């Protein structure tokens, strides 16, 4: 084999590999693929495709084309090649024979669409990024994909108390439930994709753990700047199909997440060190800080076509290995109660001292 032949086959292999990654254009005949690639040597392309079938990288099957000149449509697999459902010709009666053509399929896993989403913000923020996100995604997609912007107000010192988390998570769970019912009634899937940031990730994890919301199921979940504990049992929720997949976007320069576990009960540095579950996709961005994800210039990059978040939400996950992907090898344990006792007590005192002001503030500025 000459170098040019090598490079030609390498080019084809790269093209097919790209199709598998995207989950698009995964079924074709050699003639169809040649047309798409602008190749003239169909015979050689077919030989190459036959070779990759031998490697187990594709399956081959015979399809049939209607022989009627004015039709020539490819018959669906579940149709006997004795009649055309499109032009209604019975080939036996018309003394014609369906034309066999070898087809190839690279993978059974196809791309998916973002049908609707829920975005949950973090603490101490009005999260203007949610509006930007909704606007950007609506413009990117060209089709209707509603974004439910979930707001629980400007949470400050109340995050220091675990019972408040549970109350807030119950409200979130109820909101999920009504949104899912509304989506179902409109013919949308009953699994929203979720983007959660910072304290929003903690609330989402509590919804998943709450038996009262065991009926709620979710699509693909992105946690950014997560304060969920690294050893959170994502595996169970994935096995039970409560969530379809999880992307944990880690900001290497996150200065807030490492402190969360000392002050916020039940939290951990998942958004700094990654999750230990092997099924979760941890991706680290070395340049990002705690809220860098939502700066307009970064956000539009993440959700545009081929951006990290868009790719995670739309591509098949088998071959999805984005840049910065890592596995957290070592285990993680929460700090001992003795170590957190002091900061938690301080936190409680702060809450006792200023909690009433925060509560009053929420009346005039929720």
């Amino acid at each position: 084999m000459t170098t040019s032949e090598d490079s030609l086959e390498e080019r084809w292999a790269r093209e097919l590999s790209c199709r598998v990654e995207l989950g698009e254009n995964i079924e074709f005949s050699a003639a169809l693929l040649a047309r798409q690639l602008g190749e003239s040597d169909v015979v050689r392309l077919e030989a190459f495709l036959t070779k990759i079938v031998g490697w187990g990288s594709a399956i081959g099957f015979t399809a049939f084309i209607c022989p009627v000149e004015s039709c020539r449509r490819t018959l669906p697999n579940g149709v006997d090649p004795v009649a055309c459902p499109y032009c209604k010709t019975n080939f036996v009666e018309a003394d014609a024979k369906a034309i066999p053509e070898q087809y190839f399929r690279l993978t059974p896993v196809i791309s998916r669409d973002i049908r609707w989403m829920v975005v949950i913000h973090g603490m101490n923020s009005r999260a203007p990024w949610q509006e930007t996100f909704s606007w950007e995604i609506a413009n990117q997609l060209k089709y209707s994909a509603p974004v439910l912007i979930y707001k629980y107000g400007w949470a400050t010192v109340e995050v220091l108390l675990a019972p408040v988390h549970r109350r807030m998570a119950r409200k979130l769970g109820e909101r999920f439930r009504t949104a899912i019912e509304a989506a179902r009634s409109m013919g949308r899937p009953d699994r929203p994709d979720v983007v959660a940031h910072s304290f929003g990730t903690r609330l989402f994890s509590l919804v998943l753990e709450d038996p009262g919301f065991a009926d709620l199921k979710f699509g693909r979940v992105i946690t950014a700047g997560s304060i969920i504990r690294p050893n959170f049992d994502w595996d169970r929720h994935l096995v039970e199909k409560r969530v379809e997949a999880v992307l944990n976007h880690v900001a290497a320069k996150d200065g807030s997440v490492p402190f969360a576990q000392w002050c916020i009960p039940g939290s951990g540095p998942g958004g700094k060190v990654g999750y230990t579950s092997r099924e979760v996709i941890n991706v680290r961005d070395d340049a990002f800080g705690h809220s860098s994800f939502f700066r307009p210039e970064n956000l539009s990059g993440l959700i545009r076509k081929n951006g990290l978040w868009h790719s995670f939400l739309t591509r098949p996950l088998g071959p999805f290995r984005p840049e910065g992907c890592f596995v957290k090898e070592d285990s993680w344990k929460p700090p001992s109660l003795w170590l957190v006792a002091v900061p938690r007590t301080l936190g409680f005192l702060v809450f006792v001292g200023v909690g009433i002001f925060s509560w009053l503030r929420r009346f005039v500025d929720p």
Partner: protein
Amino acid sequence: MPNEVLSTAQLKELVKQVVVAQGNNFIKDLLRATDSKIGATKQDFVQNLDGAIDEGRLTQARLEAWLAEVEGWGDQYVYVLSPPAIDAAGLTRAINASPVAHLNDAAVSPEFTEDLELKQIAVDGQHLSMVWHQGKEAWNRWSRKDNEEEEGVERYRYVAYRQRLDRSVVRFEWRFDDEYCLVLIHRNPEIKHHDVFEAVEEMLARFGCGDLPLRLVPLTQAIRTSAQRVNGVQSTRFEQDAGYVEVGSNLPGMGIEAVGPVRVVLQAVDTNQFARAQGMLNFVSLEHGTSRDLSVEVFGPEAKLRIWAQCKREDVLVILRLIWGYNAP
């Protein structure tokens, strides 16, 4: 005629007719099941099945059981209708007291008359089944036998047609637990569907059934629902008086779901805004439990299906059960 015993010669004649009319895949299944050699042509199949009859590997009972499984199932139109009103016990009594009582549990008839003729009735506590036969002679264009001749100064061209004998089976199927009954009509264009409905209703009236004539049950909702399920639709068309939307996949193995840009168009269609719908629905063996992948064309307002492949009884019943589920409002 119940349990009429066919002679070996009659059985072989029946086999010959069946081989001509049936799909090769099913005949190969029968050959395998009788430990016979398969062969490549219809002639081989007949020869090998004759051998199986001579050696006692293929009996009348076995052939009848196989025919009940495959003949009159697939490559046909299916109408979905509301069931008549009668209780199972009363129905059995009425059939046994009717002039067609002799057809109850009758053996498979090798004869296919030119007119639609009721040949079998089967009734028990769970279901009622009636089978009509119609034999039709037709001529297929057969260009391989075309020829030209010269006689003196004249030149003649002979255009050949080959005779085809269709064994067309029409069925009425009603499982009492189902909220629908079915009329299944072989694809033969010579069969007038209106005549079939009249024949079915005449029989049901004789058996004392109420709620006649049977009402068609529109399947538009089944297409709307299928348009939203994974691997659901090969092509679909939603219509209202002022316009229509039509989308489809050209891929032989995958439906609209696998064609991203078409898929999102279908997602954007509010199918409830369209009064009428038709579509080619895909049923995948691994997912839906059919014996093979099948594509079925559904004409919603006409309550009609066109099955474009030969299949087995269970396939048709599974598909209908699924479609009925999709049709729930």
